[in-house]
């Protein structure tokens, strides 16, 4: 029986061994609306790059504010993505393979945080972990104060970006052929070996796709960050915040930052896609 591949686990084209000649499978009148959407994406991005480079944006790249914001963005999003993978993979696996009480609740939570507006997420984090928040006094007793810290930036990024990873990872695990699993267990694999040598590699594409979405979402996070972590150069001012505030100071600075962030995101995306393809062929 053919394996039906869910398409939500990756937004890239099918793996190498599946690529065939292009087939005319779509009605011709799909073209105008599709083209409209592509234009909606393409025109702003091209305009931004064109204007940004023309406005002499490159000299701004060495501005200390830009360097600080970029470094902070890269560090926090990497840490957030790493923590999401560490905690999200077991969660996705559990959702995929176990029947446990409260599973439905967890699924609802994930979907809810996925559609939650980032500013709402920021307010929620503040109400939960702020100094006067629900857990505020408890944290204060241990000497921890989260708002206005870099840790708060990472938390905000994790909060909004994790659902992307967990959903994609779960789909990846779901898509693994049941026969593989059965074969492994009859060969005598225990739960950890089953995960490590069968499920994890076979779900690799789903996990990588999820990582891409999660990491770039964390990199671009704004609303929850500015509300929960505040805005402080070097400590909590990530690139999106710097762009937003820089826009009010000098449009040229904002342009430079935007082009830079676009470039960084593209590089990140390309790098991860490359890894994805490598994982696929392996």
């Amino acid at each position, binding site marked *: 029986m053919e394996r039906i591949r869910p398409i939500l686990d990756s937004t890239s084209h099918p793996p190498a061994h599946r690529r065939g000649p292009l087939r*005319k499978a779509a*009605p011709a009148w799909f073209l105008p609306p599709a083209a409209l959407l592509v234009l909606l994406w393409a025109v702003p991005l091209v305009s931004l790059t064109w204007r940004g480079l023309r406005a002499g944006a490159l000299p701004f790249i060495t501005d200390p504010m830009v360097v600080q914001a970029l470094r902070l963005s890269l560090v926090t999003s990497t840490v957030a993505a790493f923590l999401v993978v560490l905690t999200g993979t077991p969660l996705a696996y559990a959702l995929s393979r176990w029947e446990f009480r409260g599973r439905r609740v967890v*699924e609802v939570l994930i979907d809810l945080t996925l559609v939650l507006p980032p500013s709402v997420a920021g307010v929620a984090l503040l109400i939960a972990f702020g100094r006067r928040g629900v857990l505020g006094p408890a944290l204060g007793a241990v000497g921890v104060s989260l708002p*206005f810290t870099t840790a708060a930036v990472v938390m905000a990024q994790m909060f909004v970006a994790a659902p992307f990873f967990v959903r994609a990872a779960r789909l990846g695990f779901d898509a693994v052929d049941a026969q593989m699993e059965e074969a492994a267990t009859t060969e005598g694999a225990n739960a950890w070996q089953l995960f490590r040598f069968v499920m994890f590699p076979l779900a690799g594409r789903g996990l990588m796709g999820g990582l891409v979405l999660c990491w770039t979402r964390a990199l671009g996070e704004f609303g929850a960050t500015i509300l929960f972590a505040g805005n402080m150069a070097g400590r*909590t001012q990530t690139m999106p915040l710097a762009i937003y505030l820089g826009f009010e100071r000098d449009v040229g600075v904002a342009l430079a930052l935007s082009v830079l962030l676009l470039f960084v995101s593209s590089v990140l995306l390309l790098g991860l896609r490359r890894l994805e393809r490598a994982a696929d062929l392996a």
Partner: protein
Amino acid sequence: MIPVLTLPRRPSHDKAGGSLGWRRLLAVVFVATLMVAACASEGDSVAGETPAAQGVTTEAQSLVVFAAASLTDAFQDLGRGFEAANPGVAVTFNFAGSQALRTQIEEGAAADVFASASLKEMEVLAAAGMLAGVERTFATNLLTIIVPPDNPADIGSPLDLARPGVKLVLAATEVPAGGYARQSIDLLAGLYGASFSEAVRMNVVSSEDNVKQVVAKVQLGEADAGIVYGTDALAAASLITVAIPRDQNIVAEYPIAVLAQTTNGNLAAAFVEYLLSPDGLDALKRWGFRPLQ
């Protein structure tokens, strides 16, 4: 719960090119019809105005006012008063940091009137020729320190802001309130010693986008203190204020001007006149704004 979409693996059969040809034509006709319909409906609304109506009032009865965040409460009052005095008029406000509003206007946002918390933002627009006429300064404001009702860091005087560990929130430097606050801190250093400025800057944990965000952070108790306008402290009555001495305080001057891009010149001018009238100045005074010296 999590939707899974699947693609059928079987390719659809390709029909002959001819039958796709009429579909393509249909698509073009469909899109063209939409475009014509859109243009036609716009044309209708223009053609629908009778010459008589066009002659009597060429202006719509709506006014867009961009005003500094600190003017929120006072201007909302003013807007209501203006609408009451001019039936049929609707005033819409956009409150934000003056620097944000100035940028929006520069980038083409549609506004009739601009009221700023600093002369600097207004002068930038004036230099770019975006004002219709000159600006009029209508009020002044002083700064004050605000702390949460329970005063967690026990701030009793401006000197306490330099104490290590105090969480101070200011508006960003580009925001008028933030610029003024930092100027005031430097003036206070003349009173408390040169290291005061540095110590206070070390305590700044966040630079907010507008002054109302500073108020919010203090109200939430996340910040130990914030520096805002006296009018903001008045509007957020639950907060405790710690005064900054008059000599080290900054007098913020608020200018207002009609923008050159306005299509409601008469109405805009009427709004400015209303602001400067006794009714308008009363409303400002109610909210703590000071008259011009």
